[in-house]
């Protein structure tokens, strides 16, 4: 026997068919309950909380015969569920997934209905995850909206939410896969980036994706962005020499829907020239002072500090470098 009660409720349990004035003992999960909670043979639980969930048993006073047993589950009725629908495999179909904003602590059942115009469509529940179902598009290019209603019910109440949307509004591909970034030999300012269409996108030829690439050196916060209308590769040509970069790519159908989440980030550093072979003394100097410098500078000189940078992007310069260049220019006038 199962009994569901709301948090904060007052609960009265009768000992089966025993009279009110019968001598009984109540236990909760095998532990005797103090007589102060009894009113005659009735058990009174005031303002119940979650910790009071458990098995309650009532025994006849002298014989210890079990007269009544129930499993009490304390919980709450469901709040309005959170529902999301998305097509990451257009034009095949879409899926909806849901969850409750706060737990109810008791079992809930979910029912989803999908209506397109006058037609009711079946949303097939996924085995994993449980709170998800998917629908195949029966029609494409329809101007009629879809209406999805999710109802959640438990022993203490029910609630629902509704989403209404166009076929194209919910299209959002998965992020691009297999993003690879490589230095370009003999090119200290280039990085070659390539990626693949997300494997969940069924027909990239008829439904091509466009891409958004963002990249920045690890030492800076500002991203550079490039939008690419075709192809699954791009060469960055304005990387700072010797700096490690972080790179991500996102995808969107060429015509409809929204951008995917960003792909997994990849890191790469542009090609740098191998240090030339020096005399033994110079080699010792180099290995002791250059290992922590991130610029390819002469071993004992650090040209630029991050704080001395002026400007941004490909034309950032630092004061010291500017002075050096200016000095050389004067020499050659």
């Amino acid at each position, binding site marked *: 026997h199962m009994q569901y009660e709301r948090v904060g409720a007052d609960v009265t349990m009768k000992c089966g068919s025993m009279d009110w004035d019968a001598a009984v003992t109540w236990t909760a999960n095998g532990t005797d309950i103090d007589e102060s909670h009894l009113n005659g043979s009735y058990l009174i639980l005031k303002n119940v909380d979650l910790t009071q969930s458990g098995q309650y048993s009532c025994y006849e006073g002298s014989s210890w015969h079990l007269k009544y047993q129930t499993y009490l589950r304390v919980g709450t009725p469901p709040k309005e569920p959170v529902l999301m629908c998305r097509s990451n495999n257009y034009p095949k179909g879409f899926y909806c997934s849901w969850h409750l904003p706060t737990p109810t602590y008791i079992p809930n059942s979910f029912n989803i209905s999908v209506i397109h115009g006058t037609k009711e469509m079946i949303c097939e529940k996924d085995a994993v995850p449980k709170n998800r179902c998917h629908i195949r598009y029966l029609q*494409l*290019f*329809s*101007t009629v909206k879809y209406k999805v209603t999710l109802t959640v019910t438990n022993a203490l109440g029910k609630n629902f939410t509704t989403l209404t949307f166009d076929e194209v509004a919910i299209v959002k591909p998965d992020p691009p896969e297999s993003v690879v970034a490589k230095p370009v030999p003999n090119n200290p300012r280039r990085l070659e980036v390539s990626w693949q269409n997300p494997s969940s996108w069924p027909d990239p030829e008829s439904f091509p994706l466009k891409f958004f690439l963002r990249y920045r050196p690890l030492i800076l916060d500002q991203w550079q962005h490039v939008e690419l209308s075709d192809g699954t590769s791009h060469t960055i040509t304005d990387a700072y020499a010797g700096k490690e970069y972080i790179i991500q790519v996102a995808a969107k159908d060429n*015509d409809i829907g929204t951008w995917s989440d960003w792909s997994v980030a990849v890191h790469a550093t542009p090609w740098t020239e191998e240090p030339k072979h020096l005399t033994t003394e110079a080699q010792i100097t180099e290995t002791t002072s250059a290992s922590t410098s991130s610029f390819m500078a002469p071993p004992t000189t650090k040209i630029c500090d991050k704080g001395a940078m002026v400007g941004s992007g490909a034309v950032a310069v630092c004061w010291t470098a500017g002075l050096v260049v200016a000095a050389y220019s004067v020499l050659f006038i």
Partner: protein
Amino acid sequence: MAGADSPSTALRRRDLCTRGIRLVGKMRSDVIDLLDTYVERQGLDASASVAAVEGVPPAAVERWDEQTGTQRLLENLAAYRAFRALLAQMLEEQREQLGEAGAALGRALAAVLLQVSAFTYHLEELLRLESRSPPSEEGDGPPPRPPLSLFEQKLRGLGVLRELAQWALRSARDLRQLAKPSPGTGSAPGLAESP
């Protein structure tokens, strides 16, 4: 006609498809802008639901991926010929309703009508490439309908533009299907007629 295409036919088809895709892309973008102008000028609610309008070819299609190339071309052609007549009618109605005040709307409608005509020609060319003469147009315009109230005319116009935007989406997808090279035979998939 079954059998492999000549290389020049395949090239011409791909060229027509590429240009057609660009044309409908621009058309769709212009129709979406036109929808905003139309809704504002006609004093309509942008979220108004419009039931299927008689005479407006619906873009919605079942089993789209199973259509043959010829089916795609014929359905597109029938639709855009209908839109050509519907837009011409809208242009006339709008001139009567708004006069000079609707000049900008009129220009935008005329520009879209031009693009629809251009795309119709594109489709006719693609059909000729498949050695199929485009079907002749029936009559000179849409069949006579009972007169609509002013409000009904405006709502129908909204329905026409919305459906045209959907068709522009569908046509781009149709042309991409047509442009796909078929492995081995060299002909586009779905264009071979059944024996």
